[in-house]
């Protein structure tokens, strides 16, 4: 699968006047990868994509596509095709003309274009819709037309700017699968931008998690979820219970943290945080809701938490228990539904436990705002 064209950002800075939109980005994207940039709104995702496609020049650093420096090359000279956040279909051209616009630019005859359009329309399952105007299509159909239009240019790298954000939930889930399938079929590199972690985790080979203007972590969806480098990533990707405190001792890749409200907790120091924690440092421990269980007798005291049930939420395959620990510390526990006779009643007093290898500790830092 390494047939595709790799993309590299090296020490890249992007500025608008004095405003730094992207700070020192270093990313290697394997050829043929489905790579996502995941981050909140306004963190600089679109800006990165526009720089890769050639609409913006970085203030500093390099962009390499297939090993070639793209400096000074315009959007038309790069082997990229960009799908805009609002799709930007041409409203006055028929669907088939939209799709083959890049061929029209190259001077292909109408017959050739029509033939290619029909092939692409087949691929996106819109066979008989070529003579419609974009305004006559549904949201999901427009989406697919935009993809076909970009693919028609035969780019080495397809850039997608939150292409699913305008669709309703059901369609969004369906299009995730479809996009991933299209990517596998054409085998080119996809760079995908989203603020939706579900999209990033399900579709991507690798994900870059962005905080405002900076990239905090790059890795597979699983490593970003299970092994976050920073407190931002831990709080942004997926739901997490966070406990603030100070490092009391460190041994064998684990740290004992004296938390402010929940006593001493033992947790694994993540790969990205290794070497960045010392005894006495401010730290944050993160435990996933699914990492909390009802304690067994053998549980050690530093992997145990006492809490009262506030309420429960039944979700079918699982149920969530919302808890209140010492000094009002709020927590959430997620349990697989095994057909228990009853859920935990509000007010019930529970002792929870967690596996120290599933709890992670990183230096205290910025959190993703809800």
């Amino acid at each position, binding site marked *: 699968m390494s047939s595709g064209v790799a993309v590299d950002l090296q020490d890249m800075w992007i500025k608008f006047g004095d405003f730094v939109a992207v700070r020192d980005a270093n990313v290697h994207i394997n050829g043929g990868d489905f790579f996502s940039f995941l981050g909140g709104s306004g963190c600089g995702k679109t800006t990165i994509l526009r720089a890769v*496609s*050639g*609409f913006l020049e970085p203030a500093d650093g390099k962009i390499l596509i297939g090993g070639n420096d793209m400096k000074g090359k*315009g*959007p*038309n000279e790069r082997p*990229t*095709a*960009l799908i*805009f*956040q*609002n799709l*930007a279909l*041409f*409203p*006055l*051209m028929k669907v088939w003309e939209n799709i083959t*616009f*890049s061929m*029209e*630019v*190259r001077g292909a005859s109408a017959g050739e274009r029509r033939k290619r359009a029909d092939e692409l329309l087949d691929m996106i399952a819109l066979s008989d819709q070529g003579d419609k105007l974009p305004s006559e299509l549904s949201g999901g159909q427009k989406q697919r037309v935009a993809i076909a*239009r970009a693919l028609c*240019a035969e780019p080495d790298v397809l850039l997608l700017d939150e292409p699913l954000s305008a669709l309703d939930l059901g369609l969004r889930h369906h299009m995730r699968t479809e996009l991933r399938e299209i990517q596998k079929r054409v085998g080119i590199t996809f760079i995908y931008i989203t603020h939706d972690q579900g999209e990033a985790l399900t579709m991507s080979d690798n994900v870059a998690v962005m905080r405002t203007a900076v990239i905090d972590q790059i890795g597979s969806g699983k490593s970003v979820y299970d092994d976050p480098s920073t407190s931002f990533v831990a709080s942004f990707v997926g739901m997490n219970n966070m406990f603030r405190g100070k490092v009391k001792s460190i041994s064998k890749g684990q740290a004992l943290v004296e938390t402010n409200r929940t006593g001493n907790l033992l947790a694994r120091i993540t790969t990205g945080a290794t070497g960045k924690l010392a005894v006495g440092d401010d730290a944050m421990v993160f435990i996933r809701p699914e990492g909390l269980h009802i304690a067994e007798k053998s549980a050690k005291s530093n992997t145990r938490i006492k809490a009262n049930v506030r309420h429960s939420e039944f979700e079918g395959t699982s149920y969530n228990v919302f808890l209140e620990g010492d000094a009002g510390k709020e927590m959430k526990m997620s349990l697989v539904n095994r057909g228990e006779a009853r859920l935990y009643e509000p007010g019930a007093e529970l002792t929870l436990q967690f596996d120290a290898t599933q709890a992670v500790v990183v230096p205290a830092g910025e959190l993703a705002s809800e």
Partner: protein
Amino acid sequence: MLTNYFKTNGMVMGWGLLLLVFFWIVILIILPQIYMFNLSFHPHLPPPEMGGPKDFLTLENYRYLVFGADGNPDGYNKVDLLVFIRTLTAAAFVTILDLFLCYPIAYYLGQSTGGGFVRILVLLLIIPYWINEILRAFAFKIIFGDSGVINEFLMFFSVIDSPIDFIRANVALYAGLGYAYILLMIFPMYNVIESLDRNQIEAARDMGAPWWMIHKRIVIPYAKPGISSGCTMVFMLSAGALAAPQILGGPSSLWFTQLVYQWFNTGGNWPQASAYAIILLLACLVIVLSVMKLFKVNMGDIGK
């Protein structure tokens, strides 16, 4: 629609507005036109005899433009017909000139992200219109005159030896008319182009389209309603202009409106003047409608 209209404006205000529009359209536009239209089919009579026994319906006033007075040795009214055709071609020329001049400006204004510079530019375009039409026309006469700024400049740098007669060559007239209606061309186009999604232009660029192709395939088709409404206004108004041709026109080039004016004023022949005015109006309408048909523009688009 009407209920909504009354809801937003209130009963009193709503009826007031409707009455004003009605007054404007019927009393100020339709009635005088009907009067003129009717007049154009009557012979030229002193007022007391109008409607009297000597009055009758006739096409004579219209016939006159084509064949001239009875016993005309040429057979055709060559002088007036020539003026008529020249006026229409010149108006078309002015329209095209304005179109080419204004499209880039409108595009620039419409696609720029705003900011102080653009506002100053718009202001610079508007301010000259605070000065009245006659003064502007005379200003052009001065600029283009024998010892005007342009001739002086060219002679100073020895580009030419003797002044060029811009007035006789109608350069001053075209420039004056073109300038007079620039805003009417820019603003409708600007309005439409402003609403064009910049991403469409970028998408086309991304797919390798050169600038002229982006205009041909994306901007111009999108701006068509604005372009046609601008062209319609400029064409109608230049063909119907009076002051600028009067002041800037060369001695040998009459504008058709000047003929109308002569019939009304000097000649005192209102029926004949009415016939000429109506012919001009109809000719303009026919031209505009056929050009719209040719470029597949709908009437509804013009109001955009």
